[in-house]
């Protein structure tokens, strides 16, 4: 087990290096930051001077080496735009994004698991039809549209919840539903199919024949067997939630990483883009590692 964790950590480090190379190169493909940072009457000398000051006058490989050296020191450079440490900007907003993603995942799970299980248990009944409608509609609804509709109805029309911003519990309800809706639909769909497969397996038939109560068969045995693909998918969905938060954060003015990344990309603010993508990527890599470890708890046959 210890060796496995070490090996996975090593793999995570290699992946992180690749991610850093990709994000470093892609950020630079977006164009010259001086076009947006300097006024249009800036001379070529102005631009060259500015490039030198922010360190983008060097050959690309040297810029990358400087970047890696700094990252190892915990420094991801200074935002070209805000002139503040990029890592600090991202980390100060990361809790808001993580909070939104966690609550959205909680919402998605609370909706999706019962819906998926019920649909499987009551296959081809009206409950199953309703669940499938929910799954299809949920996956087909654009996030920004759902967000605005929820906002108009619950915040503007009924006045029950605030329209936007981060504050008390009431502030997160609409953004979490908006962000979690797609995942809820997707997880419900997967839960249904995984449960159907488990319910048709021999051991479930045997347990039923042996007189075990249906509740125990479904929730304790079938669900546990169906859990591995569901947990894997949920971990992947968490990554989707983190990246999908960009739209939800914009609609609800939620002060997370997504909002600042959109601006950073538009402004060619390389250090902020790099910091945001690297921090998010590291988080997802560690989450995947955690999920792999959870497998062995879910299925004792899996040993590392």
């Amino acid at each position, binding site marked *: 087990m210890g060796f496995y964790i070490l090996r996975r950590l090593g793999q995570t480090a290699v992946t992180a290096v690749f991610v850093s190379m990709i994000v470093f190169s892609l950020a630079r493909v977006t164009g010259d930051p001086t076009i947006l940072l300097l006024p249009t009457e800036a001379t070529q000398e102005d631009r060259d001077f500015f490039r030198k000051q922010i360190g983008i006058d060097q050959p690309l490989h040297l810029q990358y080496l400087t970047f890696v050296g700094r990252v190892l020191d915990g420094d991801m450079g200074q935002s070209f*735009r805000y002139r503040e440490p990029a890592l600090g900007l991202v980390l100060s907003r990361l809790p808001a994004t993580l909070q939104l993603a966690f609550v959205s995942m909680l919402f998605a799970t609370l909706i999706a698991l019962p819906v998926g299980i019920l649909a499987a248990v009551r296959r081809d009944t009206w409950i199953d039809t309703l669940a499938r409608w929910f799954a299809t509609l949920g996956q087909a609804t654009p996030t920004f549209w759902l967000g605005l509709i929820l906002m108009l109805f619950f915040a503007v029309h009924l006045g029950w919840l*605030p329209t*936007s911003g981060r504050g008390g519990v009431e502030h997160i309800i609409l953004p979490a539903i908006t962000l979690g809706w797609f995942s809820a639909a997707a997880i419900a769909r997967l839960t249904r199919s995984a449960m159907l497969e488990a319910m048709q397996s021999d051991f479930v038939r045997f347990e039923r024949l042996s007189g075990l109560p249906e509740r125990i068969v479904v929730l304790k045995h079938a669900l546990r067997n169906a859990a591995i693909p569901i947990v894997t998918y949920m971990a992947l969905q968490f990554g989707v939630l983190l990246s999908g938060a960009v739209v939800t954060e914009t609609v609800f*003015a939620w*002060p997370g990483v997504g909002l600042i990344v959109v601006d950073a990309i538009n402004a060619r603010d390389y250090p902020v883009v790099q910091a945001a993508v690297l921090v998010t990527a590291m988080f997802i890599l560690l989450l995947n590692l955690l999920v792999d470890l959870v497998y062995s708890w879910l299925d004792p046959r899996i040993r590392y």
Partner: protein
Amino acid sequence: MIHALAKSVTLAVLVLGLAGGTAAAQKTVTAAVGIDPTSIDPHKISGGGDYQFFNHTFEGLYGHDNAGKLAPELALSHEVSADGKTYTFKLRPGVKFHNGEKFTAEDVVFSWQRSNAAETRNPRASILTRNIEAAEVVDDLTVRLKLIKPDASILENMGEYFYIVDKTTLERMGDERFGREPIGTGPFRFVSRRIKEQIELAAFSEHWGKKPKIDRLVMKVVSDPQTRIAQLRAGEVDLIVNVPPQVAKQLEADRNIKVIVTPSFQNIFILLNTAGADGQFSNPKVRQALNHAVDKRTLISRVMFGYATISAAPCHADITGCDIGKEPYPFDPKKARAMLEEAKFDFSRTYRFWGQTPGRAAQSKEVAEAVTFYLNQVGVKTSIEFLEYGAWLARITAREYAKYDMHWQNWTDYNNDPMGRLPRAMRTGGSLSWHTDPALDTMIDAANAIVDPQERLAHLKKTFTHIYDNPPYIFLWTTNEIYATRNNIRWTPRANVSWPVFWEIEKD
């Protein structure tokens, strides 16, 4: 027991009453704005949106009043030498910075030095302060600026490009801290900022002239216009900016909301590449014909929903010299076609037209598409593509004259003087110019050396008349700024700017 209970209740009522009283006395206006300033250090401004902060907190020697007219701020008056290269300013006595420090001539000299210092990395130093060769303290309340070359627009530009900071404070705080907790002389003082969330300001009671009628001003950064509208309708904010024209009429129907429309200096036009090698647009007759080809009034009513003012020249009539007394080119497609044929225009080619993706300027994509429709109606075939703002700007400044023919563009004059724009946008070789006209170049070059205001006005009118007769663009319109407030807000926005200025806002 009962006595203790009564005491507690009385105390609670008193506390609540006091708290209520304090809340009633504090008047806070919360505005939802679309963009966050890039910097709150006045010598590190890199975007037009930054002025929504600086117009409240910092001042120049000269600035503008709420009507948009040039007005002395930290100076009382000035004298200019006959050659237009030396300006002597009498400074306003008794002015204090937000931390109580006294404003003196030393601060002007220090601000000039800091604005130009390499380590400040001031993106806008080249517009004004880099042309100042020397700044001298004559006495505590007199300062002299010597220019490298004459700059008749210097006073107009001081309110945006030469903000005054306090020498003592900066030397004590250092650059980094000052950049987080700036201290100026404006009618509002800085309280706090959370990047991409909000900026909070408080009224500065010791301001030399302006007395805000509110205590606090909170500018929340909400980039999505639909969210801003929802916040206003839910009563969470008092005011919103940049209402999209297509929803402004709906808001006007809401009884709890007022829609405020003011003209802005944002000009919209279709730039024609006259510097191109094949010379299709080098003939002024062709450019005049294309101005006749587009039905601008219909576009204003149908695409801009009425929230724009048609332009005869490429600027708002309040820009110095732009009021040339000419009618906009009338819509006449038959005349346009005849003029193009007479000029032997090449109808066989497809002309490369590009514009900006939606999101930054109201209806940018729709306007570009509609213009290409009108051009096609007179036989000018176009291909069209849309670029995201950064790529769009990069293509404009790259000026690859041989590759592209025309594009949608906007331009915002930051003040009444057109010389911020003309050299850049229309002079041969200007950083945004796709135009070449030697006669116009001579006129532009002469404008800033004319010291006498009347003589300069006449010269600029002549220049804009020349531009009208030899249009480098298809002139379209200047846009209107659309704001919306709750009914309990009374506010006249500062005229002719695209950012909100809340000097005179009141809340009932």
